[in-house]
């Protein structure tokens, strides 16, 4: 890791450390928690989209699997929440790796369509299996308890999520700057060049797809426990789009950009609440302007401008 990345990681830790002491009320605390959760999902998704150059328009589906695993398994089968979370992640890993092999024979638009379809299928399954999932109405999620200690206050959740975010940032930065990460970036830069130096490109695409899906699944579980209720909207197509937008706005192939993208786009709908009905229009305009003037995303553009890369 270079000096700048250490600096960035330090900054993330410092901000997360100070935040709970300066946030005025529980509304902002809640917002900070949801920003951090999204940031972790987006970091995972950015490994796939920004670094490996692949696309997924179905990631909310994996988030849904995690969320519903944490809702259904403890409620109907008496699973411990931690075990349910692990089972959700395992199911996600299996589904993702089974579909990834045929999917990654595709490229560009076709890959986007295939992943989009996958997300929609998961969403429909969650909606229709009403006897387990509560159907479109959703279902309550039992509290998350570990060693007899129950996570219930915003403060507790904040520290858990903040710690997970720091770990995700650190691990992702490590990954990018490793033989595995270089192979990922190389297949993005030139598939044929990476192949002739020995990179098994299908294996790498599948691995990173599964890894980012598991990221989403785990955070789906966390979200479910935190909110205490799940609905099929977790796995909604528009949620997938929202996640991809966070990657793009924050900056492709930038871990810190992922955080910025997640923070901005989680805050934006809140800030737009006063526009009553015109939120979507403003939201769309912000995205369009971003695409036109900052096609590389916020963080890489600013970093290039001030001569500091991450």
């Amino acid at each position: 890791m270079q000096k700048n990345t250490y600096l960035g990681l330090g900054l993330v830790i410092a901000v997360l450390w100070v935040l709970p002491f300066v946030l005025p009320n529980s509304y902002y605390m809640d917002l900070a928690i949801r920003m951090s959760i999204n940031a972790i999902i987006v970091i995972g998704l950015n490994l796939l989209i920004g670094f490996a150059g692949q696309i997924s328009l179905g990631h909310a589906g994996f988030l849904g699997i995690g969320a519903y695993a944490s809702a259904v398994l403890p409620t109907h089968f008496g699973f411990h929440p931690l075990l349910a979370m692990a089972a959700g992640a395992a199911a996600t890993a299996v589904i993702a790796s089974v579909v990834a092999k045929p999917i990654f024979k595709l490229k560009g638009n076709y890959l986007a369509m295939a992943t989009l379809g996958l997300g929609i299928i998961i969403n429909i399954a969650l909606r229709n299996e009403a006897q387990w999932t509560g159907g479109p109405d959703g279902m309550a999620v039992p509290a998350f308890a570990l060693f007899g200690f129950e996570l219930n206050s915003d403060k507790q959740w904040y520290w858990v999520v903040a710690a997970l975010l720091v770990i995700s940032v650190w691990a992702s930065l490590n990954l990018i700057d490793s033989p595995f990460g270089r192979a990922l970036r190389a297949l993005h830069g030139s598939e044929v060049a990476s192949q002739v130096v020995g990179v098994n490109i299908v294996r790498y695409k599948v691995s990173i797809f599964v890894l980012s899906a598991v990221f989403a699944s785990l955070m789906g579980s966390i979200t479910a426990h935190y909110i205490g209720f799940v609905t099929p909207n977790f796995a909604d197509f528009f949620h997938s789009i929202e996640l991809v937008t966070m990657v793009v706005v924050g900056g492709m192939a930038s871990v810190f950009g992922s955080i910025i993208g997640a923070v901005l786009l989680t805050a934006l709908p809140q800030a737009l609440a006063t526009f009553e009905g015109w939120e979507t229009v403003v939201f769309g305009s912000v995205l369009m302007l971003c695409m036109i003037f900052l096609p590389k995303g916020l963080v890489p553009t600013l970093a290039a401008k001030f001569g500091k890369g991450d």
Partner: protein
Amino acid sequence: MSLLEVKDLSIHFGGVKAVQNVSFNIDAGIVYSVIGPNGAGKTTLFNLITGVYKPTSGEIRLDGEMIQGKSPNELAERGVARTFQNLQICMNMSALENVMVGAHLRLDRNLFKAALRWPSLRRRDNALREEAAELMKFVGLDQYIHARSDAMSYGVLKRLEIARALAMKPRVIFLDEPAAGLNPKETIEIDRLVRKLADSGITVVLVEHDMKMVMNLSDRILVLDYGKKLTEGTCAEVRTNPDVIAAYLGAHA
């Protein structure tokens, strides 16, 4: 036994017979050139041997092992390296990282160790960084060790590709027009570099249009025309072959 044996190799794209029944052997440690007019099938031949295309028919043996139809990454495992006529540099990575990717198969590619900053993996990676810098010096890119690849010129990137291929520690390296588009000074530098590669014991297979360079470097030459083998031999044999002269200068010359 030759290092590389190609027998009756053919590939058809629809009705186009890009390479037809081409056979030749390459001995270890030599510089072997493939020449021929544009569209003769030289790059296609490279793509066939390095696994980018699958042949329609024919055999390719590396050290006696049949390798036709194997994927490029499987061939990389067997010590086959190549560069590209149209550059294939990863512009999203630094120059040094491009070279480091070349060492992919020699490293610990474990995902979890990488994410956890495993000490042995880091040590190996740091050592590789030094090694990649040495390779860049070897190909004459001393001043580009800290450069971004998208800020480098064409001629320089050509040599970066060679450095990346060398990072594989290959047994045989296929250079597809390493001097194309270079100015005379750069061509001389490539000429010297290819000589250095050959002297270091790597078998070099070269596609090149610069005849001075080809005649200067090659131990043997294969001449292709319209996807077929026209002739094969030493520089002197090829130079005086009437078919070759006809192919290059026109049939009635």
